[in-house]
């Protein structure tokens, strides 16, 4: 459940401008830079933004952002999930999933709202509007 381990490739995460636990609108935020990577299982009360590489299982109470250039192979669960990079895995957005124009998503999604911009690529099954099984975070 609470196995949390993060592997940072480059420098240890700084709590400076955009590092871990910076308070933004009252909630925590983790930002993984372009050179950072994380592997494992993360349950997090806050927002996560990935610019590098992520693999595993991520359940966040806030938003999950995958920036352009990022690669994510994971189970993702978040309130708002926004993807501009490459994602492979099962995805749940309790509120909204946004696929930007550079997004590449491969996997099944369960979402309340879905927005896809022109240019995005998506392969998978879409289920909209039901969250019985996966809202327990």
């Amino acid at each position: 459940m609470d196995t949390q381990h993060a592997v940072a490739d480059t420098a240890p995460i700084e709590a400076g401008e955009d590092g871990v636990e910076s308070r933004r609108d009252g909630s925590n935020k983790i930002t993984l830079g372009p050179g950072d990577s994380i592997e494992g299982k993360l349950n997090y009360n806050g927002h996560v933004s990935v610019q590098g590489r992520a693999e595993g299982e991520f359940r966040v109470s806030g938003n999950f952002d995958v920036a352009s250039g990022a690669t994510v192979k994971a189970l993702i669960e978040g309130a708002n999930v926004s993807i501009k990079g490459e994602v492979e895995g099962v995805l749940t957005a309790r509120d909204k999933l946004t696929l930007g124009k550079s997004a590449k998503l491969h996997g099944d999604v369960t979402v309340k709202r879905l927005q896809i911009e022109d240019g995005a690529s998506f392969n998978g099954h879409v289920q909209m509007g039901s969250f019985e099984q996966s809202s327990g975070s």
Partner: protein
Amino acid sequence: MPHQGVKEVTENETSMVMLGPKDRLIGELHIEGNLRVGGTLEGQIEATGDVEVTEAATVKASVTGREVSVNGQVNGPVLASKKLVIGRSGSVIGDVKVPRLVMQDGASLSGNVQMGPQVAAEMAPAPAPAEAPMEAAVVASTDGQTEDRPKAKRR
């Protein structure tokens, strides 16, 4: 001039079919051109041009077209050889196979999505009229059969 059955349609010209909000079509429709649906449609539709499903429309059919835009309700598989746009009031329940997909916020979609360049490659980019010059009728009422010739040939 072998084919003069439908006046508005000539070989190189696309036709435009519009179904108003009170119109209803149940069956199969094949059209060399664009289609705009405002009413009820059930069965199977295939257009070489663009298909527009307006807000008031209810479509229970498989929809095939070049560029398909949905602002109403579609219940059935959608195939677009170019692009599918689901507007904010649009709803698609069915499998979607398109090279490009745009979904506006508020739109609803349930089904399997297949997307990307490989989808475009396996679909006909454009039907070549040279291959089957005789068969370009709007609705083939005479042969009564399914007319998916342009697609089948192009594979």
